């Protein structure tokens, strides 16, 4: 990190690295999005349908 070149090549490289990080970031997030939702979530929501006294 001592060398803070701002030449075009360095900037291109930085951009490419940022793109790679961006792709990985989305991949990490989507990995969880694509997991099956635990039944608990829907159970909780189903119970919430009933009047409070029924829970």
């Amino acid at each position, binding site marked *: *990190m001592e060398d803070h070149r701002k030449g075009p090549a360095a900037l291109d490289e930085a951009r490419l690295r940022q793109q790679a990080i961006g792709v*990985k*970031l989305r991949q*990490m*997030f989507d*990995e*969880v999005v694509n*997991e099956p939702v635990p039944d608990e979530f829907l159970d909780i929501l189903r119970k919430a349908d009933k009047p409070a006294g029924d829970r």
Partner: protein
Amino acid sequence: MSEAQVGRSPFDPVRDGTFKKELVTLIPHLRAFARTLTGDPTAADDLAQDAMMKAWDARASFQMGTNMKAWTFMILRNQFYSEKRRSWRQIQLDQEAAERTLVAVDDPEAPVALDELRLSLAMLPPEQREALILVGAGGFAYEEAAEICGCAVGTVKSRVSRARRALQAILEAGAYDRDGGAAGDAMYAILADAERLSTLR
């Protein structure tokens, strides 16, 4: 605007049904956002469930047709911070949780890139991390992220930009912590460096 009229009965089965259907489609996204905030799958699901129920309970105040994803993310985020998980101590615990998650991976080679990213992400200041996640992975516009985080659009832009630089610096230096101990001076030096660079533009 008629949807938001004050005095409308909170018990509207048709509206509730529509709301619920949309809320269910958002659960995977809430889980993913919660996972990035807490770093721990179990804590994340607790948080996502809390946020889901808060959203359900507050459904009468949601204006149908507006961005429910942003609205629920805001609820989840508020829930997260109201539980006082923001302290440095908690962040360290989150990193340990991330480490524990890693241990479960059988193949030590294949998932390295993602693990590195996960650990590096855990080292970012929380406000930078959430800004980057919302914009870079959650698919939110800067304006939406600003609304979710309750800050100015310019603040989000600057946080995302700082987060990107810091993340790149951490990844390049390999300073993410693999041993479960404190990442220590190297990390702070890198973050300070990234911070300085981002103000030099």
